[in-house]
């Protein structure tokens, strides 16, 4: 059962999820040097937004047709929470010592978890997320669950759209300028406050897409799902080089594949038998992070910040 194609497929699907969430960490960090530790919860809220839409739809409504509506619902919820966090929690602290927004982010994360736990109907336990029926599809020697095709399609589409936005549009260019030198960006006529809101909004929207993928993959969403996923996505962002959007996706994929391979094969390595299986996968993920930070502190695609004149 530990076939390589299957493990790679599992890793890629998980990695796409990490990568999509990691975009939010990396964009916000790249522009305001803030680690938005509430981003995992913004992802979680997106999952509940999508779930809510699916519950509104009439019985027998096709899931395939529902997915776009669920994405819209999830994106609206995530973006609303993400931009509100920026406006009311982080913006007043701009210019404050770094620790202040960091602690705020952790507080916000607990607040959002508890709000869903308390006020979302029956959210004290995981809630069932709609599932595609039918057997897995067998391609390239791997069995892929039907719901996982969502991430396989959505992740590259999102990345292409983001690359286009950042490199080819005026606001995207303004975003790069703001990341590199915010004061000088203002001198160009760039409304940097608006750029910061855009960064939060895009990150939140991508997290919501990831949350739909998460729900379809796991068959459930829960108020706690943002914690470990957020931590893994943050790891992916650092792994890829924080501030670099392509690095975030690459870091996610590397992390996902490494986890899957460690889960599948570690038990076969002589002397490592007891470290195989899913229980140890987080250990391998974070061990990989430590290793990368030791050997390449700027991350896989990170740039050394030495070019400021």
């Amino acid at each position: 059962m530990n076939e390589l194609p299957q493990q790679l497929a599992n890793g890629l699907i998980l990695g796409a999820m990490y990568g999509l969430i990691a975009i939010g960490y990396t964009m916000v960090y790249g522009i305001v040097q803030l680690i938005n530790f509430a981003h995992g919860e913004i992802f979680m809220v997106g999952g509940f937004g999508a779930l809510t839409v699916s519950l509104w739809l009439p019985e027998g409504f096709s899931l395939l047709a529902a997915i776009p509506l669920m994405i819209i619902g999830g994106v609206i919820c995530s973006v609303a929470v993400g931009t509100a966090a920026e406006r009311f929690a982080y913006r007043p602290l701009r210019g404050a010592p770094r620790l202040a927004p960091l602690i705020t982010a952790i507080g916000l994360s607990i607040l959002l978890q508890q709000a869903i736990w308390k006020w979302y109907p029956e959210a004290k336990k995981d809630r069932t997320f709609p599932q595609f029926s039918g057997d897995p599809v067998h391609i390239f020697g791997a069995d892929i669950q039907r719901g996982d095709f969502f991430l396989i399609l959505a992740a590259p589409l999102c990345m292409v759209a983001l690359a286009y936005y950042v490199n080819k549009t005026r606001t995207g260019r303004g975003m790069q300028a703001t990341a590199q030198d915010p004061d000088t960006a203002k001198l160009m006529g760039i409304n940097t406050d608006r750029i910061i809101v855009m960064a939060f909004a895009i990150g939140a929207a991508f997290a919501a897409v990831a949350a739909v993928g998460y729900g379809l993959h796991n068959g459930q969403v829960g108020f706690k799902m943002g914690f470990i996923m957020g931590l893994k996505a943050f790891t992916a962002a650092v792994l890829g080089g924080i501030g670099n959007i392509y690095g975030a996706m690459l870091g996610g994929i590397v992390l996902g594949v490494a986890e899957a391979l460690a889960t599948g094969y570690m038990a076969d390595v002589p002397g490592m038998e007891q470290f195989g299986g899913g229980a140890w996968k987080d250990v391998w993920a974070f061990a990989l992070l430590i290793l990368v930070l030791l050997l390449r502190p700027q991350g896989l695609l990170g740039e050394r910040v030495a070019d400021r004149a």
Partner: protein
Amino acid sequence: MTTLLEVEDLRVAYGKIEAVKGISFSVEAGQVVTLIGTNGAGKTTTLRTLSGLLKPLAGKIMFDGQPLNGIPAHKIVALGLAHSPEGRHIFPRLTITENLQLGAYLRDDKAGIEKDIQRAYDLFPILGERRKQAAGTLSGGEQQMLAMGRALMSRPKLLMLDEPSMGLSPIMMQKIMQTISELKAQGTTILLVEQNAQAALSLADQGHVMEVGNIVLSGTGQDLLHDESVRKAYLGED
């Protein structure tokens, strides 16, 4: 002549420390006006306040008949005030062309932007040769050219240049100063902040000497150039 910029009793502070202590000066359209003085005199603070990056404590700034007080930096550019900051501050990981395009961020006339980019390349041929290169790879002098070219891309009514000759080789400095006089000849209104008093005063219509937050002496460029106290303090004569 019309007055383009009028600064009245401007005071700026960083926390409790007052860096600019009530200065007044004006810039007429078509003039080159220079602020000279040593480090810490408040020259850069003055420019950063004019472009909206710093908030004044008190005082009035009138630009092109409109008060600038309270207008955020990104809207001041739109009014026609461009600022090439001290230390050049080009966007290091963007190409030269992209840097120039950012200078025209608020403009919508594609053809006009293209033309002005070409004009920047004519003014500074080296930028044209390296247009696809990341700006961070340029030498200091080339970065200064780029910063000036970028500021011109907004087609400003007033161009503010902060220490354009700082840290440059004598040859490069000469080239930059020559460009400023070319711009002057074309009718560009310039507010120039410089530590190199000799160079700045020789091309300025008006000059103001700043010392610890105050303007201590004003006059035409030529007057100041021949003023004994200026010669002693800023031109290194005994």
